[in-house]
């Protein structure tokens, strides 16, 4: 049996043991707790640090986000600026160079990839625009070209009708109306033609080789103020243009004159000078107007140079076609127009240079220039030379007339010298034809010719003239001329070409004259003025011409041949 104290003792021991065990565990626990608390504290500190860092990062992130948003807004603004300001301005500037094209909004963008990209976009828009504009312009030109070509053809037909009417009806009032209509028609024709040329068309009319002065005068006639144009013709007679250059020169002169007339006071003249220069012929147009500013002048010079392509949309409204047409023509026909030098009169001086390869020569005796063209001034200066070496060249406007030597209806003697200004017609050996008394036979025959009818005048009279001339030569060869004045005239006229200084350059004919003068009677039969065949040919031609003229007058312009 177990006693109670043992039991108690045992219990106590067990209790103590347990208490020890528990105490140890408690101690361990407490130690662990303290360790954990330390760990927790350190962890909390670390956590705090992390949290702080996190807050910092979050703030940075927010900053970065706002920054990015700002950049995006700036780019957007640049693009909007490009679309709203820069591109339109650049588009305008392509047509009007004085318009300023704004740069990017922020100066910092220049040189960055964004800046380059924006510039590239702008350039691409401009290129596309230019191409589109060219395409549209070409279409517009094609349309205009077709329309103006038809108009031009119609106006030429109208011109034919008007000129036919002018020949047919000579009632003064009607004729004046017809003249006015013809002038109006010429102006319309000029407009249509210039428009067509600007639109790239051909000049629309093939002409034959013509006198240069005719082309200039023809251009003058196309203008409203043609009265104010004064043409001075300083070229040798017969200076002509090759056929394909005639109409272009007429157009260019008309446009230059139109500019000159438009920009000068209505009471001033516009002066045109035709002068020979080493490379060809210069047609100078001077006006007394206000002139052009330097930039205007430069622009005009660029246009007439024809180096830049022409766009209808750049010609303004109403379009200023003149200079553009000149540019087209100078480029196509190798002409050159210079507007770059100011006129000494303060206005504008335009110089059209026609090079030698576009020039030719027409015998003015065979094909005289139109009656209204100014006479060359040079012929008057060079009478002695012209009479012989350039005899044909010296007779610009004398289709039928010989030297004005002989009688008129009055029968009064007329000295050749008194009437020998420019066009002393010297061909066929008549250069020494002096004034002569009207031989009675010639005079009577003259009358007879008149009696046959006025239309027969030209033929017989010419015949008589020739006879008179020969009579006259005989007269001179005879020792005692019947008329003292005739003798004087004979001396003065025949001695003028006989100058020794010019002897070498002279043709055969001159020597014959001199021998006639010197040799007297014996040489006269040996050197007849013309052979019978020549005389027959000349008279035949004369008759044919008279018949042609008469038939033209009768049939109103139809060509007999």
């Amino acid at each position, binding site marked *: 049996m177990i006693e109670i104290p043992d039991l108690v003792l045992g219990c106590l021991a067990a209790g103590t043991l347990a208490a020890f065990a528990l105490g140890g565990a408690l101690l361990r626990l407490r130690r662990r707790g303290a360790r954990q608390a330390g760990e927790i504290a350190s962890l909390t500190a670390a956590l705090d640090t992390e949290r702080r860092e996190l807050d910092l990062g979050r703030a940075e992130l927010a900053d970065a986000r706002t920054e990015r948003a700002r950049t995006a807004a700036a780019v957007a603004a640049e693009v909007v600026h490009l679309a709203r300001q820069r591109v339109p301005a650049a588009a305008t500037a392509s047509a009007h160079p004085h318009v300023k094209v704004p740069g990017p909004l922020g100066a910092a963008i220049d040189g960055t990839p964004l800046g380059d990209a924006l510039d590239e976009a702008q350039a691409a828009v401009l290129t596309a625009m230019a191409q589109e504009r060219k395409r549209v312009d070409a279409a517009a030109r094609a349309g205009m070209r077709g329309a103006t070509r038809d108009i031009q053809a119609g106006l030429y037909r109208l011109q034919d009708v008007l000129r036919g009417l002018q020949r047919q009806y000579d009632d003064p009032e009607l004729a004046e109306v017809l003249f006015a209509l013809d002038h109006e028609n010429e102006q319309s024709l000029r407009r249509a033609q210039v428009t067509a040329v600007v639109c790239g068309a051909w000049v629309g009319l093939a002409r034959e080789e013509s006198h240069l002065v005719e*082309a200039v005068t023809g251009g003058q006639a196309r203008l409203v103020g043609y009265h104010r144009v004064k043409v001075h013709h300083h070229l040798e007679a017969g200076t002509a243009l090759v056929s394909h250059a005639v109409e272009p020169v007429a157009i260019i002169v008309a446009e230059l004159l139109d500019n000159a007339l438009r920009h000068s006071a209505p009471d001033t003249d516009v002066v045109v000078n035709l002068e020979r220069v080493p490379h060809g012929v210069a047609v100078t147009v001077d006006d007394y107007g206000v002139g052009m500013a330097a930039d205007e002048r430069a622009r005009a010079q660029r246009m007439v140079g024809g180096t830049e392509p022409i766009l209808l949309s750049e010609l303004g409204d109403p379009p200023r076609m003149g200079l553009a047409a000149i540019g087209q023509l100078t480029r196509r026909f190798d002409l050159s127009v210079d507007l770059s030098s100011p006129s000494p009169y303060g206005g504008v001086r335009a110089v059209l240079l026609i090079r030698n390869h576009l020039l030719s020569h027409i015998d003015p005796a065979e*094909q005289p220039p139109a009656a209204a063209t100014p006479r060359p001034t040079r012929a008057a200066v060079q009478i002695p030379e012209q009479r012989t070496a350039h005899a044909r060249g010296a007779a610009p406007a004398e*289709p*039928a*007339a010989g030297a004005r030597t*002989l009688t008129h209806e*009055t029968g009064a003697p007329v000295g050749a010298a008194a009437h020998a200004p420019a066009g002393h017609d010297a061909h066929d050996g008549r250069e020494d034809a002096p004034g002569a008394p009207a031989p009675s036979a010639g005079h009577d025959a003259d009358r007879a010719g008149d009696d046959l009818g006025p239309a027969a005048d030209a033929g017989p009279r010419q015949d008589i003239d020739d006879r008179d001339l020969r009579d006259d030569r005989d007269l001179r060869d005879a020792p005692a001329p019947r008329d003292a004045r005739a003798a004087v005239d004979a001396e003065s006229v025949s001695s003028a070409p006989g100058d020794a200084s010019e002897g070498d350059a002279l043709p055969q004919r001159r020597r014959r004259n001199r021998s006639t003068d010197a040799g007297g009677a014996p040489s006269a039969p040996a050197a007849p003025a013309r052979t019978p065949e020549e005389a027959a040919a000349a008279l035949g031609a004369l008759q044919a011409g008279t018949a042609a003229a008469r038939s033209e007058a009768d049939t109103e312009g139809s060509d007999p041949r």
Partner: protein
Amino acid sequence: MTARRTGRPLVPAYLSTGGVATPRRGSLERLSVLAATDQPVPQGLPAAQHALLDVLGDGSLTVVESAALLRLPVSAIRVLAAELTDRGLVTSRPPVPAAEPPDPDLLKRVADGLRALKH
């Protein structure tokens, strides 16, 4: 002689008179005969008037012949001739009436006489 030109004339007719077609004197007809006088030609004479003077040259021509030679309408020649007449450079004469046909009897007698000469 003058070569005929077939092309369209470059210089219109109105330029020769400055657009005027009403002559200052109305007496000229198509067949009136014009003749130049021996007055010296003044300086500065309009080119067309000068050309008409040259055509008249040493004789006389009718208005219509001058017109054909100068390739101008008759109305323009009238104006030019009237101005030249005013300047005393040209005289004009009314048209010559058409000649009467020769008397056949006279012709026959002439022919007979000629035949008689021949035999």
